[in-house]
C-alpha cells in the first residue's frame, strides 16, 4: 500500500501536543467557529457539516455527553481509516479531545471495526501514552475543569453498525439497527445523551484545521467541498492505495495519479456509491458532484458490469439489517432481477419496474443503507444498459 508523497492536510506535519495545547487556549465557540469557517464536512460519507454537528451537541441539554469515533470502516473498498488508526492514532485521539472540549463531553468511545481487532493493542498503548502525557484524563494539559477519557469498544462485524444510530444501538447492547430520526444523536444519542459521532478522518482533519487555520484548509478543494480528503483506491489500476487528494479532483486526474487511465468505469463511494462510466470521467469528486466517503474502485475494460452490480447487490442483501420493507426485500428483489438479466430472462418492462423500485428504496428506506443500496444498480443499468441487457436478453 502506498501513500501519496504530497502532504496536503492530513499527512502534513503536526506537533500533536502543541496543537492540542494551542486549541485548549481558545474558547469553545472559537473552535467551533474555526471549523465552521473551514467548511469541513463529515468524512464518513454523509458529508454533514462538522461544525453544525458539534454546535448542536454543544447546545443540547444533557448531564453527560459523548464523543464517539466511528472506526467501523466497512464500506467495500475503504481502508483509509485503517491507515489513520495505524499511523496517526495520536492525532485521532487529540482530535477527539478537541471535539470533547468543544461540546463539553467527558466520555469518548472508539467503535472499532471487528476486523481491526489486531489494532486494539497499539491503540490502547497510544491511549495510555497520552494519559501519561496528560492529553487524556483530568485537567488535560493543565486546563482546569476539563477532563476526558477514551475507551475502545469492538464492533460486531456488521456493516450496518457503521451507521451512527445503529452503532449507538449496538453500543447499548441491542441488535445493530438504525433508529428513527429525528431525534438525531446530537440531542438523543448514546444512553439517551447528546452524542457526536464522527469519522476517524473528521477528527484528525479538524485538529489540523484548528491548529493551522480555516483559511489554510480552504486553499485546497472547491468552494463547496473544501480541503483535501483521503481516498482508498482499489481495483484495476497500477498503484492502489491510500491517497490524499484535494476535493474536487476530476476522476480523470485521479486515474492518472493511480495509473488507471484505461478504466471502463469507476465506482465512487463504494457499494453505496455511484458507478461513473468513462464518458463522465470529467466529473469532480466532491459533495456537489460525485461524493464519496473515500472509496474509489477502478473497473478495467475487461470487467463484466453485470457481475459488478451483482456483487454489490449481494453485499447489500447480506448487510441490510432487515428492519424495513424496502431495503429488506428490495435488495433481494433487485438481486433476483440481476440474476434474471444474467440469464437473459429479464424483460424490459420488468427492468423498468425494478428501476422504479430502486427509486422507492432510495426514497422510503429508513436509513442510508437502503437509501443507497440501489445506487450502483441504477447507475449501472443507466450507463451500461446495452452491455447488461441488449447483449444478453432474448426477449427484447
Amino acid at each position, binding site marked *: 500500500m502506498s501513500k501519496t508523497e504530497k502532504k496536503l492536510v492530513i499527512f502534513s506535519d503536526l506537533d500533536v501536543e502543541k496543537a492540542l495545547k494551542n486549541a485548549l487556549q481558545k474558547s469553545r465557540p472559537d473552535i467551533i467557529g474555526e471549523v465552521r469557517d473551514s467548511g469541513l464536512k463529515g468524512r464518513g460519507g454523509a458529508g454533514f457539516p462538522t461544525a453544525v454537528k458539534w454546535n448542536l451537541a454543544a447546545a443540547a441539554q444533557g448531564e453527560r455527553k459523548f464523543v464517539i469515533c466511528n472506526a467501523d470502516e466497512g464500506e467495500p473498498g475503504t481502508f483509509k481509516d485503517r491507515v489513520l488508526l495505524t499511523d496517526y492514532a495520536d492525532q485521532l485521539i487529540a482530535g477527539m479531545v478537541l471535539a470533547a472540549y468543544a461540546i463539553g463531553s467527558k466520555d469518548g468511545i472508539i467503535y472499532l471495526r471487528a476486523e481491526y481487532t489486531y489494532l486494539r493493542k497499539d491503540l490502547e498503548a497510544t491511549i495510555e501514552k497520552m494519559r501519561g502525557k496528560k492529553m487524556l484524563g483530568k485537567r488535560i494539559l493543565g486546563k482546569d475543569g476539563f477532563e476526558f477519557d477514551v475507551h475502545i469498544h469492538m464492533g460486531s462485524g456488521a456493516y450496518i453498525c457503521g451507521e451512527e444510530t445503529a452503532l449507538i*444501538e449496538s453500543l*447499548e447492547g*441491542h441488535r445493530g439497527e438504525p433508529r428513527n430520526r429525528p431525534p438525531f444523536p446530537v440531542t438523543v444519542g448514546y444512553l439517551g445523551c447528546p452524542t457526536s459521532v464522527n469519522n476517524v478522518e473528521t477528527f484528525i482533519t479538524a485538529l489540523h484545521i484548528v491548529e493551522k487555520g480555516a483559511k489554510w484548509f480552504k486553499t485546497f478543494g472547491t468552494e463547496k467541498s473544501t480541503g483535501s480528503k483521503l481516498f482508498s483506491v482499489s481495483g484495476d489500476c497500477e498503484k492502489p492505495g491510500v491517497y490524499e487528494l484535494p476535493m474536487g479532483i476530476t476522476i480523470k486526474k485521479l486515474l492518472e495519479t493511480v495509473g488507471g487511465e484505461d478504466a471502463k468505469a469507476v465506482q465512487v463511494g463504494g457499494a453505496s456509491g455511484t458507478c461513473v462510466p468513462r464518458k463522465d470521467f470529467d466529473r469532480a469528486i466532491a459533495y456537489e458532484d460525485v461524493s464519496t466517503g473515500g472509496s474509489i474502485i477502478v473497473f478495467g475494460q475487461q470487467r463484466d458490469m453485470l457481475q459488478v452490480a451483482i456483487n454489490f447487490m449481494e453485499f*447489500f442483501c447480506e448487510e441490510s439489517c432487515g428492519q424495513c420493507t424496502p431495503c429488506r426485500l428490495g435488495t433481494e*428483489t433487485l438481486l433476483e432481477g440481476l440474476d434474471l438479466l444474467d440469464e437473459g430472462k429479464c424483460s424490459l418492462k420488468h427492468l423498468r419496474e425494478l428501476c422504479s423500485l430502486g427509486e422507492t428504496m432510495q426514497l422510503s428506506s429508513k436509513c442510508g443503507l437502503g437509501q443507497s443500496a440501489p445506487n450502483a444498480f441504477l447507475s449501472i443499468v443507466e450507463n451500461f444498459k446495452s452491455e447488461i441487457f441488449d447483449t444478453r436478453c432474448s426477449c427484447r
Partner: protein
Amino acid sequence: MPNKDKSTKFGSDRAPASSVVASVEVAKNEKDLGAMVAVSIDGNEIKVPFGTTILDAAKKLNIKIPTLCHHEDLKVAGVCRVCVVEVEGQRTLQAACAYPITSPMTIKTYSSKVRKARRHNLDLMLKHHVGECYSCFRNNNCELQSLAKEYGVDFYRFGHDTEPHHEIDRSSYSVVRDMNKCIQCRRCVRTCIDLQEVGVLEAVNRGPDLDIATFADMPLGEVVCINCGQCINRCPTGALRANDPSDEIWAAIEDPSKHVVIQTAPSPRAAIGECFGLPAGTSVTRELNTAMRRCGFDKVFDTNFTADLTIMEEATELLIRLKKALVDKEQVAFPQFTSCSPGWVKYLEHFYPEYIDCLSSCKSPQQMFGSIIKTWYAETAGIHPKDIVTVALMPCSAKKFECNRPEMQDSGYKDVDYGLTSRELAQMIQEAGLDLPNLPHSDFDDPIGEATGAGLIFGATGGVMEAALRTAVEIVTGVKTEKIFENLDIIPVRGFEGVKYMEIKVPAAGPVPPILSKALGGLKDFSFLKGATLKVAVAHGTANAKKIMEDIKAGGKFSECHFIEFMACPGGCLGGGGQPIPTSPEIREARTRAIYAEEKTLYSRKSHENPTIDRIYKEFLNDGPCGHKSHKLLHTHYIKRGNKIV
C-alpha cells in the same frame, strides 16, 4: 441477544426495551413558547403541539395515512414504510408514524411519489406472504388485505410465493404461529417485550432472511410464553391466532351421547358484538345466550357465578392469612396475589417463582366452574360427568393452557374440556347463520346462572379487587359496604392507570358470620382488624405487574400490601388475547364502560348476596369457604417453573 438494558426504572435485565425507540417529548402545555407548530397537510393548515407525529397531526385533520407496523399501544417502530409521506424540502420520504413535528412544515400524503412507494412496499411484503384469504381467520379483518385493496394490488409485481417456507408452530395450547403469513412488522415483538415484558419473541437474522422467532427458535409451547395472546390481538395479519377448538366443540354438540355445557365469562359479552359490526362497548349478554343455545349448547351458564364463588373463597383465604399473621402470630406469605389470570400465574411461575406462596390457592372462576359442573351439577342433573363436555367462553387465550394443566382434574375428569375465545364463538355463531345483534333475548340457565354485579366486573382491571372489597369490607366491619363506599363504587381501583394503590382504614369490627366460623378457627369477631389499614394494589399487563414485583423484591411500599390484583392483559380481561381484533385504548375503555353500566342493572352487586352461593355452601360445599371440600375442588397449587430453558 444479550439483554443489557438496565435503564428501566425498576431495573431488571430480563427483557430489553425494544431497540427501536426514538421519541421527542410532546409539548404538554399549549401556551408555552414554541409549544404549537404550524403544519400544512395536503393544503389543510393546523397547529399541533411540538413533537406530535405527522400521523397524529393528520388524524386531527381526518386525513387517513395508512399504517401497518404502527399500533397505538406500542412503541414506534417505523419499519413497514407504508405510512411514508412527502415533506417539502426533504430529499427522502418520511415515515409519518415516526416523524415528530418540531418545526413548521408542508406535507403531502398522497403524491405520486408517495403512492408509488406505498404500492411498492406492499408488493414487496406480498412477495413472501403465503396465505389464502378465504382460508384465513383474518379474512375481512386483515390490515394487509385491506391495504392491498386500498392500493389496488391487482397482480404481484415482484412475484408471490405459493409454497410455505415455515412449518406452522402448533406446540402451544394457546397460540398458533404461522410465519408464512408474517410480514415482519414486529408488532408481536414489541408487544411481548415492551407491553408485556415477557420477551419470548425477537427478530433474528438480517436482510431478506430476517425472521420473527422465539428464543432459540424453540416451539412456542416450550418457551416462557405466558399465553396471554396480546401478540395475536396486535398482529395485523393472520400469522398469529389462537388454538381454535371449534371443530371439536361442534363434534361434541352433534354427539347425542354428550351433554355440552358452556359457561361464559364476563368479558366476551361486552365485546363479541364487535365481530358483528356493533360499536365497541355494546353489551349483548342476552342475545348471546340465545345464540349459544341455537348453536346447540345444552346449558348456558354464567361464569360470573364462580366469580362470586371465587370472591367467597379468596376473601376467606385473605382473612385466614390475616388471622394467622395477627392473631396466631404465624409466618404467612403476604401480600396475597389473585390467581384468576392464568397468564399472570404462568408469568409468576416463570419469573418470580420465589413468590409462589403469595398466590391465592383459589382456582380461577373458569376452573372452579369446571369442577362444579362435573360434580355438583352432574349430581343434581343426574348426568354422569364422563358424558359432560364443558366449554368455557373466555376473552383469553391463556385459558386454553389453563384448562390443560394436568392438575386441573379434581372432578375426576378434565374439569374444563375446551377454552373458546370470543372470536371463535363469533365464528361459530356466523357458521350457524345467526344474526347475533338481532336475536331475541334469553336468560342464563339455572341453577348456576345466577350472578351478581361483583362477578360481572371481574372483566375490568380492578374489578376483582372491587368485588373482593365489597364483600370483605362488609364481613369484617359488619357495616354495609355502601355505607363506606358511596353507591358501592370503589373508584380508586378502577381506571387504566398501570398500577393502582389504595388504603382502607377498618372503622369497625363485625362478628364472624357463621359460614366463616370454621375457616377462622372459631374466632368470634374481627376486632383484631379494627383500626388496621388494609393496603391493596392493582396491576394490569405483565409489564405493570413486573413493576410491582420488583418493588416488592426491593422491599418498597407494595411489599406492605395485603392483597394485590394482577391481570396479565392490559385493561384486564376485557383486553384479553381472545377478544375481537382490533384493540386500542379507546376500544378497551368502551368495553369497560359497558360492563360497569350493565352491573348497575343487576339485582345485587355483592358476591355474598348471591342466593346460589348460599345454596352451594349449604347443599354441597358444606364445610364452608376454604373448607375441606372446597379445597379439593376449588383450590389448586402451582409450579416453580423458572425462566431457564435448557
